[in-house]
């Protein structure tokens, strides 16, 4: 078999959907029903006037499976647009994490020093704990969490990856933005 057919790739996929009941279940059901992987999934409304939400999914699979995932997503009725950020030029990925570290003494000071290096902000403090807020790539957050775990008890809450293409191109523009998008997006229902 062609090695390309068996290499597992990681892709970040942006999906614009109608913000209607059941749409997330439809997307997740597609992944579980067809045995695709979800490494991370984020969703939020991005256009309140047009009632649109944007989902970012990080998934893994062979190139053939990734193509399948995109085609399967695109044929869902409430899906407007599917973009593979990994293949369509370069893109940005960010995650937000809230990291609580419970510790005292020297470890506490070390935690603060490392947080400073990682540009994590302390947003809550007691005498035995900090809560840090940080944004960054998944790897950066992983590295920070590993260091914190060595310095005390740690609890983490993360958003998962959100992504957007670099540059001036608007793949999935907001309807009310001054530079309007290429598609009419009024869903009747």
């Amino acid at each position, binding site marked *: 078999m062609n090695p390309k057919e068996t290499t597992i790739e990681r892709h970040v996929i942006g999906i614009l959907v109608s913000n209607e*009941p059941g749409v997330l*279940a439809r997307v997740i059901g597609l992944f579980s*029903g067809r045995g695709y992987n979800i490494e991370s999934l984020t969703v939020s409304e991005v256009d309140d006037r047009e009632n649109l939400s944007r989902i970012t999914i990080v998934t893994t699979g062979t190139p053939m499976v990734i*193509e*399948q995932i995109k*085609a399967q997503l695109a*044929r*869902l009725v409430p899906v*407007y647009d599917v973009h593979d950020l990994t293949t369509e030029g370069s893109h940005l990925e960010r995650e937000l994490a809230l990291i609580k570290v419970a510790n005292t003494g020297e470890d506490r000071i070390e935690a603060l020093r490392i947080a400073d290096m990682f540009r994590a902000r302390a947003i809550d403090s007691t005498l035995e704990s900090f809560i840090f807020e940080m944004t960054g790539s998944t790897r950066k957050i992983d590295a920070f969490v590993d260091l914190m775990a060595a310095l005390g008890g740690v609890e983490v809450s993360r958003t998962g990856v959100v992504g957007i293409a670099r540059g001036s191109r608007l793949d999935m523009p907001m309807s009310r933005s001054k530079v309007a998008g290429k598609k009419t997006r*009024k869903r009747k229902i």
Partner: protein
Amino acid sequence: MAQPKKPSARKSGTKPAAQRMSGAAIIMKALQDQGVEVVFGYPGGAVLPIYDELFKTNAVRHILVRQEGGAVHAAEGYARSTGKVGVVLVTSGPGATNAVTGLTDALMDSIPIVCLTGQVATHLIGNDAFQEADTTGITRPCTKHNYLVKDVEDLADVMHEAFYVAANGRPGPVVIDLPKDVQFAEGTYKEPAENLETEHSSYRPRTEPDAASIEEAVRLIAKAKRPIFYGGGGIINAGPDASKKFTELARVTGAPVTLTLMGLGAFPASDKQFVGMLGMHGTYEANMAMHGCDLMVCLGARFDDRITGRLDAFSPDSTKIHVDIDPSSINKNVAVDLPIIGDAGKVATAMLKSWRKLKPRRDKKAQDAWWDQIEGWRKRDCLAYSQTKGKQPIKPQHAIKRLYEIIKDKDHYVTTEVGQHQMWAAQYFQFEEPNRWMTSGGLGTMGYGLPAAVGAQIAHPESLVVDISGEASFLMNMQELGTMAQYRLPVKVFILNNEWMGMVRQWQELIHGGRYSETYSEGLPDFVKLAECFGGKGLRAEHAGELDDIINQMIDHPGPVIADIRVVKDESCYPMIPSGAAHYEMLLGPEDEGSGGPRGAASAAGLALV
């Protein structure tokens, strides 16, 4: 950029004054405006307002089935024999869950269905109310799309959109879940929006193929030395004209044609270019040609596992063109060289036009040699069987063949259940045109044929409709004999009765050492008496000498008939590609060792396949 138009703005000027009416009336009006003539359904508490509206307006014909599963299959039979959308109306809870098998069947076979389900009142949803089920949750993976209508003001739009979604792109079933209070509430009726194909905000499937790809395809076909057309249900779904264009295209190119189980009828079976059905129980010549071709043109089929056999040995030396309306079918199982997204009919038309414009020169010499090779495979006569006459037992193949010979000149429709009889029907019955053959291909639903025949007979009251059945499948939805009795539907049930769940038994024989676990049909009813107690005629044939007479009696009788054809009990269905084997490893009969090893020596991977 054009600003999004509001639907009301789009239609202003022509729009009549808003019509206020109850939700139930909106539903009935929408059905009428969508041209619906028949609804298959079963009443219940959560759809009472709709049934009341039906009673008052008599707007559509309602066919009362005997179980909701039967309603969906009947609607499938109706849809497949007419090309229209089949409509189902069932109640909440058990009504909806009974419909699930039919919905899944329609999804797998891409049949356009709109299924209206009742739901408990909106304020009760989620409270485990009486006859409540999470219908949209349950049916989400087994429908093309579904809706829960919580506001009566959305109802008309949802109704119209459902018909659009069901019928356009790759067709499929759509569920509309209708809470009872929404059926009572008063709302505004809106007429169907025009041009949803171009105006729908998110669902606009591509149907027109890319012109450059069409030319490329035509060039590939012309220069191919060993081409083959592999057509499927997509051609049937694209309408009768698609079959005509496909037939023309195949004829101008001179290439052999094979069809899937779903595609039978898309090309005339009597044409000498037709090499028979392909796949697990396809003909030797079709499968060998698929294996040996250098160009495969797949039109409206999806490289299903029943077709490909072992994937890594599937047609190794061919360039593959895949035409499909659904982009997710491309490269799903088999990597193809030239994908073309579009409607099968439009693609066939475009290819034909392009062929006539380019007037390519075919490699006649190579193609003649290819045909010689195919004729050699054909000479193996893979569908041969021996039938002794007179008081001898009936071979199931012979029963189908005689049925075909006797009814072929009549206006007929054939449905089947699932199993050996289905495969024999596909092998020995010849279909000359589309929409005449209805069988559960993708899901393989036993019990499909009888209700599907009911639907086909409703659509074609004057035609001969035969359900080719097995005794076990028949028992799965035999309650629909009641529907046949009520509407005096002269459906002919032709049961190949071998007292076994034959296909399962065949597999037990092949790969489980002949340990026939639970596959004997114990306690069978007397089918003759069964027919009689439902007001029909019962017939029985026990030996070859009386077969023709029984078939003639069956088709001459003006009402419903069950013909219990007692066939040889231990016959297996050949030819066969054992699961996990390649096309060239086909078994031609019980004595055949196959070229891939001794009979029954399925590969380890093959054992795990169904």
